[in-house]
């Protein structure tokens, strides 16, 4: 349409407004179902708090997470006998403030979650779309490779991959992303398989849409609901696996205030100082719990088929 008449312009504007309203209505509907799940709302609130804590860590944290106060080794939390007001949750074995380390640790955990899920989701969607859309030998090959990855326990495979790549946070994230990817591939492929022969896809093909457009613009948006739910679950899995790798000394290296690494460093002091073990553990627990709750809420809101009774 090169010379658009005013009437056509008005039509386009009207259509755009309608589609905006539709999106708004969809969001409102989504929020209605999401808010039905009280746990999910609480989880979301906690998660938002965690994100804020991570973003503003330098402003909130009372101390530098790496500074060692030589006169304050293993100071108990403030409410215990011998606690100091300067160290609300106490200090660790080399005199670092645990609260500040936990606050900065939130940055690492959330960063790990975001990066891992982004890599795994992107790779998984592309491979899954190709497998489900192209079918044939390509499909078989991709799915067999994924089956092999799934034949190993994820943590163990990540451990071996990290050994090959070298210990460290970045390599740990790549390893975890690789290990989590097959779930996304399978989900995407399954969704694509059920969508590709639907009438709207055939219609788009008849109208002359190319393969890439069919894959990414026509089919993909209709496969997103289960992927979003799986992404939330993978987010908490990524945090857990990264903490486990850190715990085994293969993830973030000391003195990084990563929660799993902190837990590993603290283990030998468990008999003398309960707080060095308990607080990083609680931080992991609260974060994972919050994300899982949000995931449950998302599932209820997005995927009525998966809804629990």
């Amino acid at each position, binding site marked *: 349409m090169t010379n658009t008449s005013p009437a056509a312009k008005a039509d386009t504007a009207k259509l755009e407004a309608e589609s905006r309203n539709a999106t708004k209505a969809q969001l409102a509907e989504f929020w209605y179902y999401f808010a039905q799940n009280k746990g999910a709302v609480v989880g979301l609130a906690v998660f938002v708090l965690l994100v804020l804590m991570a973003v503003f860590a330098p402003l909130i944290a009372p101390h530098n997470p790496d500074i060692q106060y030589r006169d304050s080794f293993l100071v108990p939390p403030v409410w215990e006998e011998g606690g100091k007001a300067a160290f609300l949750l106490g200090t660790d074995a080399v005199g670092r403030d645990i609260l500040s380390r936990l606050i900065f640790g939130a940055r690492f955990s959330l960063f790990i979650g975001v990066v891992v899920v982004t890599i795994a989701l992107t790779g998984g969607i592309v491979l899954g779309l190709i497998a489900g859309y192209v079918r044939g030998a390509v499909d078989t090959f991709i799915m067999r490779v994924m089956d092999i990855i799934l034949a190993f326990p*994820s943590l*163990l495979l990540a451990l071996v991959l990290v*050994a090959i790549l070298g210990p460290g946070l970045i390599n740990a994230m790549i390893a975890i992303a690789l290990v989590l990817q097959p779930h996304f591939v399978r989900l995407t492929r399954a969704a694509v398989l059920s969508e590709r022969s639907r009438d709207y896809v055939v219609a788009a093909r008849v109208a002359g849409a190319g393969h890439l457009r069919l894959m990414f613009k026509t089919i993909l948006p209709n496969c997103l609901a289960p992927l979003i739910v799986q992404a939330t679950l993978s987010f*908490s899995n990524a945090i857990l696996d990264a*903490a486990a790798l850190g*715990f*085994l000394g293969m993830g973030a290296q000391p003195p990084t205030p990563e929660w799993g690494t902190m*837990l590993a460093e603290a283990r030998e002091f468990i008999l003398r100082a309960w707080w060095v073990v308990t607080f990083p553990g609680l931080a992991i627990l609260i974060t994972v719990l919050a994300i*899982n709750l949000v995931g449950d809420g998302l599932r209820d809101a997005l995927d009525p088929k998966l809804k629990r009774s």
Partner: protein
Amino acid sequence: MLSYALRRLVTAVPTLFVIITVAFFMMRLAPGGPFDSDRALPPEIEKNIAAAYDLDKPLFEQYLIYLGRILRGDFGPSLKIRDFSVGELIASGAPASMELGFSAILLALVIGVSLGTLAALRQNSGTDFSVMSVSMVGIAVPNFVMAPLLSLVLGVYLDLLPTSGWGSGELRYKVLPVIALALPQIAYVARLTRGSMVEVLHSNFVRTARAKGLPPRSVIGLHALRNALIPVITTIGLQVGVLLAGAILTETIFSWPGVGKWLVDSISRRDYFVVQGGLLLIAGIIMLVNLIVDVLYGLINPRIRHN
């Protein structure tokens, strides 16, 4: 049923072959070698050591030698733990690891299914709510967090159980590790059981069973539970991998003399044959458990009989 199991075993062979291959080349791709950390040796001695383990041959030839060994049931020698073959290492660690794993699965099934059933029978009551919230937390606690917390409470404060070690294998040394490994699984099984039990309890055949006057015990035990367990059994198969990884962490934390501890150590020590053998063993176990699960599935659910 038997022919189905046999067919599955046969189709497992190519997968195992791929796993052997991947594990072999993955370890060889890793930078560094098994003898790097030792003090510097004269080159001719280093050469002799490499020759003794065939490490001086071209990579592909090494691979063929390794495949030949596997076919003869020989997993190769350990490069770092002197005078031990991988087979011997597995034989010495496997009983303890299996004890840990099976106790945890058993505990998870018994307690998880009971709690889940209880919660489903009293749906939306206080019991239901507390079982569900506790298990929600239980799923979120990884066992490397649960283990130190448990040893803190039960071991240090209440002084009931030893916090780590093996002693001479007495029961009290085993309680904490098994609980630490089982707790997340208990929580998982409880949630699953409740979910499917609630669904089954509302189904027509349960109503019929009640209507024809069967006592509640047989309605629940014979009719409802049997059907509610189908998804639970499937997921147990999928959870085995998680459980094995958890077992590795648990063994490391509690110094449990199983396979997990030396497997983790061997990865960073580049003890090639040990890691390859360990990966093969673990993948084999996972595949075997899934086979057992599928067979059980047919037994428990007559709608799916494998022909």
